[in-house]
């Protein structure tokens, strides 16, 4: 009937509390909204400033997506951990340690690279487990515990590498057994319109989807929000707090391992300083993505978009023709801007209720 077709446009006035909130408004309440708007604004900005110097080209897109993907893989895991109310500053040094382990085991000792990758994975999990256990057992802030393990792991990496190889960088991974098959999984390129897009972008997207599903649709996801929001309340309702938090630390360590494998495969070698400062960049991406530093609130998609913003800024300044001297100023400015937009959009969306 003609009358019912136009009905939704003229909803009769009713009690405010019963008014169904529009899907747009509900969407605006999501933590990642601010970051999404920020990312779009940033993209438009670079298109205006540097669109004609390669930022818009497929090659330019691939270059910032690659940076975003590697940071994004870390940031997704970090967002889960931060929603769970903890920090992990040791992931940067785990990248160095794990990459060196893979390279030393396969290049120096001649093991198949897959064996080396699995060993590095197990060691990373153990490091994550130890981080988690010390944090839970000591009741000290994870910030300080993992700051300590950051230095310990980095130091051990340098010491062992020097002891075994007498060097601090090691190459030659392209000649070891199993390299080709490992490359197809971690380091291959997917041609899109004639430009190679690294497969790490796929890892990034798939892990974002999995993490989001876990957070939104599983009881483990609920537990993460629970232990981050109010640990005591979570414990009282029967959430296995220790297990949740320790497994989150193992998750961030595993993410660091994945990034390290992608990096050593692509660069066919490792150096002991790989991953320096990545822990901070991952936290920055996560916070830009709307996750609260205090825990209990956040999203994995937001972290992925935060990483996208970071990648666009990092690579975008090359296209904008800005000297590297200004990168950190630029980065800080963008972080501030993104967080402010984030805040503004969220307040705006909440304000109407």
């Amino acid at each position, binding site marked *: 009937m003609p009358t019912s077709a136009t009905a939704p446009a003229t909803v009769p006035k009713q009690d405010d509390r019963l008014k169904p909130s*529009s899907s*747009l*408004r509900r969407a*605006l309440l999501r933590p990642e909204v601010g970051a999404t708007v920020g990312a*779009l604004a940033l*993209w*438009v900005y670079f*298109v205006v400033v*540097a*669109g*004609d*110097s*390669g*930022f*818009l*080209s*497929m*090659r*330019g*897109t*691939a*270059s*910032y997506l*690659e*940076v975003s993907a*590697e940071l994004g893989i870390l940031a997704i895991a970090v967002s889960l951990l931060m929603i769970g109310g903890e920090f992990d500053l040791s992931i940067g040094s785990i990248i160095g340690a794990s990459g060196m382990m893979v390279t030393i085991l396969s290049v120096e000792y001649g093991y198949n690279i897959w064996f080396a990758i699995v060993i590095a994975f197990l060691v990373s999990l153990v490091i994550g487990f130890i981080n988690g256990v010390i944090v839970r057992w000591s009741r000290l802030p994870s910030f300080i515990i993992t700051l300590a393990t950051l230095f310990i792991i980095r130091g051990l990496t340098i010491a062992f590498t*020097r002891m075994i*190889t*007498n*060097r601090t*960088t090691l*190459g*030659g*991974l*392209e000649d070891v057994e199993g390299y080709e098959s490992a490359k197809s999984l971690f380091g291959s390129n997917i041609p899109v*319109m004639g430009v190679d897009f690294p497969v790490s972008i796929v890892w990034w997207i798939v892990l974002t989807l999995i993490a989001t599903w876990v957070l939104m649709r599983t009881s483990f996801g609920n537990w993460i929000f629970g232990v981050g929001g109010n640990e005591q309340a979570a414990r009282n309702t029967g959430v296995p707090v220790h297990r949740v938090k320790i497994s989150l630390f193992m998750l961030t360590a595993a993410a660091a391992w994945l990034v390290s494998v992608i*990096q050593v495969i*692509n*660069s*066919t*070698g490792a*150096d002991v*300083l*790989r991953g*320096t*400062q990545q822990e901070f960049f991952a936290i920055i991406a996560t916070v830009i993505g709307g996750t609260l530093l205090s825990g209990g609130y956040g999203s994995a998609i937001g972290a992925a978009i935060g990483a996208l913003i970071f990648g666009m800024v*990092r*690579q975008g300044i*090359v*296209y904008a*023709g*800005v*000297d*590297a*001297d200004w*990168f*950190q100023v630029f980065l800080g400015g963008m972080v501030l801007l993104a967080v402010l937009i984030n805040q503004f959009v969220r307040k705006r969306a909440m304000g109407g209720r």
Partner: protein
Amino acid sequence: MHRLTRVFLVLMLAFSALIPFNIASAQESDDLRFVVVTHGQASDPFWSVVQRGAEQAANDMGVTVEYQAPTTFDMVAMSQLIDAAVASNPDGIVVSIPDASALSPAIQGALDAGIPVISINSGYETSQELGLMLHVGQTEFEAGFGGGQRMAEEGVTNAICLIHEAGNAGLEDRCRGFTEGLAESGGTVEQLVVDLNNPTEAQQRVEAALAANAEIDGIMALGPTGAAPALMAIEAAGVSDSVSLATFDLSPEVLQGIQDGTVLFAIDQQQYLQGYLPISLLTLYQRNGNELAEDIIQTGPGFVDASNVDQVVDLIEGGTR
């Protein structure tokens, strides 16, 4: 407001979907634009001299230069910067190559895109393998060789080569070159390895070596970090008159030592040239089709000694040495 927001979002999406990815780089312009990507961080005084050289060349030639470097010694980030530089389609790229395996793919990408590349500072071998236009830098062996010849001229016959980083291939090359340079006039060299992180122990090692062999009349330190403890050891052993000290690279202590007469000379790789020359050569290549017949320009070894130290100190304050 509601509608507006929605319209805005829809427009944004449409905008992002509609803009074709291939409108880029259709820019027609006579202005040449070069990108320099190095591993030198902004805070490193060595690299700020390189950057100044590149900027001066850009001024003199009337071209644009952009200088990029990762914030930490991060070869992955550096290779990604090279990727971005390639995608920005410049008229030439200048890179340093401290890690051949990590950076070669990105540099190869530049060559595949038809962009001329000049390498600087480190990576002469990689530069040759990849077939780059030119390398501008100091090769370690030749620098050591020049240092050996120079020491022989000063009358040194039995020298110590002081290695402050065991396993650093570059330092070993310097030492090999030094040994052969001195051997040309019949001198001999023994190697001594000291720990960079423990200057006290390093000093004692040198003292012990001097005491063990009274024939020693020269020490070649492979960097200022080795020169400082060697200087203290010579003074502590009271052999300042009979043992000459020389070193690679400049530092305030080394320059002071040259002014005081306690350091004979320092080998200077003149990194200003590593910034200046590639930009001017790339400009000539693009404007005039000029290409050098050589595949390397040696910017070192240059020597700083009592004859020119005052001038160098002035220039360092100006940021060009």
